[in-house]
């Protein structure tokens, strides 16, 4: 399969993620959208890695280490982020981010 398909799919996933972050107000959905963006990038990395390995420029899988790295970081981030959201919900009984405007001015 040509690599362009992967690129277009990644762009589509990434844009969905961006739009979701921008438009949705529910914190959990925003969180999921962030994950979507991260995974769009992961997909792109894997696709390029495969492409260069097929071309014989690099060893197969060497660039895919990045993907694991990103997954680990994302997992850690999810742990922290969900904890924050839980605390926000306990305090405000809501996960609407527009309530969180106390930093204003």
């Amino acid at each position, binding site marked *: 399969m040509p690599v362009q398909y992967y690129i277009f799919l990644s762009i589509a996933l990434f844009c969905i993620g*961006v739009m979701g972050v*921008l*438009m949705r107000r529910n914190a959990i959905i925003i969180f999921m959208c962030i994950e979507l963006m991260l995974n769009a990038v992961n997909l792109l990395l894997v696709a390029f890695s495969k492409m260069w390995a097929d071309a014989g420029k690099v060893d197969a899988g060497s660039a895919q280490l990045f993907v694991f790295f990103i997954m680990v970081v994302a997992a850690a981030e999810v742990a922290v982020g969900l904890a924050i959201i839980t605390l926000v919900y306990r305090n405000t009984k809501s996960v609407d981010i*527009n309530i*969180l*405007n*106390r*930093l*204003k*001015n």
Partner: protein
Amino acid sequence: MIKLVWLVPFLPLLGFLVNGLGRRFLSKSLVGFIGSGTVLASFVVSLLAFFEVKAPGFQAQVVHLFNFISVGSLHIPFAFQVDQLSALFLLIITGVGTLIHIYSTSYMHDESDESFARYFAYLNLFVFSMLILVLGANYVMMFIGWEGVGLCSYLLIGFWFKNTSYNNAAKKAFVMNRIGDLGFLLGIFFMIMQFGTVTFPDVFAKAAPLGMNNPTLIAIAMLLFVGAMGKSAQIPLYTWLPDAMAGPTPVSALIHAATMVTAGIYMIARSNVIYTLAPSIQAVIAIIGVATALFAASIALKQNDIKKVLAYSTVSQLGYMFLALGVGAYSAAVFHVMTHAFFKALLFLGSGSVIHAMGGEQDIRKMGGLKKYMPTTNWTFLVGCLAIAGIPGFSGFFSKDEILASAYAHNPVLYALGLLGALMTAFYMFRLYYITFSGKFRGTHEQEHHLHESPSPITIPLIILAVLSVFGGYVGLPEVFGKNLLAEYLSPVFAPSAPFVTAHHLSHSTEWMLMGLSSVLVIAFILIARQKFAAYEDTGKENTGLAKVLENKWYIDELYDAIIVRPLQELSRFFRDTVEKAGIDKLVNGVGRGVQYSSQQIRRVQSGQVGFYIFAMVIGMIVLFVIGFLL
């Protein structure tokens, strides 16, 4: 002895330091002793050096003290040059300076202890600066002394600094001098650019091959002359000198006779090679000289302040010296510096004696008949007048005659104008003499009661100077009478320019005729003055017409005020009120207000809406990407 010549300026410097630092502790007699003693000691050293220099075949010697400036290929040593010219000036400065110091011990005795010491400290510093000026072996050293005398003249003219008009006179002197100094400084820069050196013999050696009328040489000559104009009070920078009368009278004597104003003459005589190679500038010097001589003499005709008359006569006599320099008669100019130092110091000190006796009165209309109260002052003053008027046998006759003869050989028009100036000199000097010393006393009774001959520290310098004013001229006899010793003595200094000078020789009969003509006319003018002023009565009538113009000094001060001072003040006011208040202040305040306003606007961006923040972030990243791809 030449090796010890550094003592000559060092001793007055020592006197300055001791008197200046110890002004609160030293008694008046000690201060006077230190002040006069140090200058007297340098006079003795100068005299010993002079006898060594006087020997035939003496070559100029340079006493190197230390390196002053050493940058790249430019080396300016702190060194003294002893040759015929500087040795002669040393004698004049320290000799006349000593007499003025001794005179001052009595004249300034009414001052408080502290200002008495301050006065002597300044006086010593003045002498020190002038000695550095004439002893320096390069133009930068000369410039150090040049600035030094400018500073000291400021300090001494404004000695009574509690009086605003005296302070203004001091500032005027300083500013006028600065204008000239700038020219001198630019001249030095040109010299460094062109020759890469400022040491006298090197500069002259490098200037000579450039030949006549080289543009650089003309520029250097003109710029140096601007400096001389300021220091030696020539048109158009002369107005400070009459105002310098604000200082104590001995200071006027020092400025006019021994130091300061002769600096310009010295500098041009020293740079004779440069000037001989720039005949166009020489012509300018001659014209300015003769114009100043006439102009100042015409003002002196109608002045009523005893010191103002003498001040304008100094300006006029300096004009003669520049005339001599302009026609290439360098030794005649130096000769006139010397004789002028004697009789002008004598006249100033004499006028000081009169002012002292009159209790501070300077208006000659309120004097008169002082002959019988002050016999010594009277006859010494008379000798001074005879000398400056140029009566045969007195020193002024020989020097002025030499200048006029050189002017005649160069251009008879210059001679005629010079002679006219000399006649005016004779007239106003005897007008001054007769109004002051003969007739009957016109002051108050209190003043008449107070009149007395001055004490011996005042009269002894007068007598010495009177003797010198009579016999000082015999070192430079005209050719028809015998040898001109001074010209012969100075000839090594002017030897480098000799190949470029076409010598004018007057026949003996012409010389006799010129001398006879000027003597007869001078005596005639003195008799007219006697006729008019011997029994002078103050009618209190206002002068009219030309006399009024002359009394008001041709309104030159007013003219300068109108064309320079007031426009400058207007400009300053414009800058203060408009540019400063409306321009710079508005700009600075505007920057502050602009920052405040824009930060208030930008503050609104911080809305607390997380969605908006993220949106801004995304937009920012897109912009960055676009920029990154496009560039």
